[in-house]
């Protein structure tokens, strides 16, 4: 393939994607970083103020730090609960039971539904239960926290189970056979053979669950909206409210977004580093390893 070949068709093949990506993503990204150092209410009247916004993020006391801690706690608990449920589902579904495909579909179904819709579905459910005690989900922060956690388990459990099923099916039959002949109990097989062999998938799912939970927005908005008094706000919702709920705080919102970006990007890049060490997993897993959650 000649050089000439490339130059002539580059505009047709690459430029449309590159142009959209640059104009609507890269430029806004750069502009966003710049604006985090500015005071502004629209982009046109931005004045450079240095690190003022960043200082205000931590001094203004509008709950950004709290939302970060809330998000951290929520994400860590999500990682543990979602993956325990997903592993249990995957182990059940790989027992060659009749209709396993139907069950898998049922467990996966919540992932088809959008976050806003899920939030209102659970709103009905949780408030229905709580109304027996004369309260609703906005009554106490712990209710909102548990509601979000249950929703997340329900949504991501089936998703992660699909990844675990693929991993469990890839465990060599000979190894399982050998362990059975050596007299290993089912628990021993699980703990000492299956789990170590699917460890890469466990790490992938752990990362995916963490980033998904930490970046959650739609479900948060629809289920609790941050109530009571912003105590159940995740970072994404806090940033959104700073941008669109407070006059003249756009600079602070943008500074928060940069901090949020750095944390999320750090976490995502951890996955890339891990992949390099973990290459001989087969192509499928290596690919999975590199894909952080979107948005």
């Amino acid at each position, binding site marked *: *393939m000649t050089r000439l*070949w490339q130059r002539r*068709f*580059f505009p047709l*093949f*690459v430029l*449309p994607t*590159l142009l*959209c*990506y640059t*104009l*609507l*993503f*890269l430029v*806004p*990204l750069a502009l*966003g970083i710049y*604006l985090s150092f500015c005071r502004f209410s*629209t982009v046109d009247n931005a004045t450079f103020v240095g690190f003022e916004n960043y200082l205000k993020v931590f001094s203004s006391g509008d709950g950004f730090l709290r939302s970060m801690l809330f998000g951290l706690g929520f994400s860590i608990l999500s990682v543990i609960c979602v993956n325990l449920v997903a592993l249990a589902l995957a182990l059940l*579904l790989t027992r060659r*039971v009749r209709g396993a495909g139907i*069950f898998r579909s049922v*467990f*996966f*179904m*919540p992932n*088809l*539904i959008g*976050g*806003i*819709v899920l939030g*209102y*579905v659970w709103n*009905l*459910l949780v408030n*229905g239960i709580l109304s027996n005690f004369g309260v609703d989900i906005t009554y106490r922060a712990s209710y909102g926290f548990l509601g979000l956690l249950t929703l997340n388990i329900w949504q991501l459990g089936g*998703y992660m189970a*699909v990844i675990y*099923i*693929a991993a469990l099916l890839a465990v060599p039959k000979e190894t399982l056979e050998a362990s059975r002949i050596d007299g290993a109990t089912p628990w021993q097989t699980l703990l000492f053979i299956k789990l170590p062999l699917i460890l890469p998938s466990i790490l*992938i799912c752990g990362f995916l669950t963490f980033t998904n939970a930490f*970046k959650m*927005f*739609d479900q948060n*908005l629809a289920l609790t909206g941050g109530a009571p008094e912003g105590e159940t706000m995740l970072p*994404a919702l806090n*940033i*959104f409210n700073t*941008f669109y709920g407070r006059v003249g705080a756009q600079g602070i919102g943008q500074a928060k*977004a940069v901090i*949020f*970006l750095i944390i999320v*990007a750090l976490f*995502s890049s951890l996955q890339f580093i891990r992949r390099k060490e973990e290459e001989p997993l087969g192509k*499928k897993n290596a*690919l*999975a390893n590199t*894909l*952080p959650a*979107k948005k």
Partner: protein
Amino acid sequence: MERKMLSQIPFLRKNKEQLITLAILIPLALLFLFPVLLVLYNSFKGSVYISNEPFALPDKESFVGVANYLVGLKQSGFFGALFRSFFITVSSVLLLALASSMCAWFLHRMGGRVSRILLGVLIIGMVVPFQMVMYTTTFITGKLGLASVYGMPLLYLAFGASLSVFILSGFVKGIPVAVEEAATIDGCGVVRMFFGVVMPLLTPALITVSVLNAMWIWNDYLLPYLVLGSDNRTIPVAIQLSMTGAYGSTNLGGLMAMLIFSMIPIVIFYLFSQKYIIDGVSQGAVKG
């Protein structure tokens, strides 16, 4: 004694195992289905009954037929939202599939430093949370005059290109260069090569990518909300706004119907493309 003998017959033992597994799986499946079923049967109840007794099945008193569905369709222009969501999802998914496969293939065949840099730059999109760019993207979209239903596909191309190009790259690498060289020797031009030789080979990957994109775009809330606002709502925006809008008390019955309306298309879609969704997920690709 007899029981022991029976359990030694492999067929029966296997059956017993199956029964135990099923005994766990069936209640679990019902538990997973329950939230959706709850909305489904509440959608046939009057609003008062939904908020007072959400768990009660519809009975003679509370049953209102399809009245909620009629209310839901009229409420906050839901019919237009349905149409808009369809248009945006379909056109964005097609554009993404076409543009990102062309881009992925060309960059990989081009080789060299420029293409490596461009592919690297394209990856950035996967680690940047939307909150980082939501304000500035909305601003620039407005400046460029793209803040319309017709501009949305371009926005989704910008935000979806990273993941799509990335997944497709893996498959492009799998196409033997020999096939393309043979076509070149036979006098096949670049454009015809892509559409005649490469794209057919990429079809399975394209379907997987498209299915994942469709689920993301259909359900996306924030981007259409910020760009199109409340005048041109998509389904998720219509649902959210009808809950928080200036309508005073929300019509719960209408909301239930809207929730069901928003789920039906995606569930039908899933039934037809299940294999590709599961494939996409086990490859680690992630929904939006």
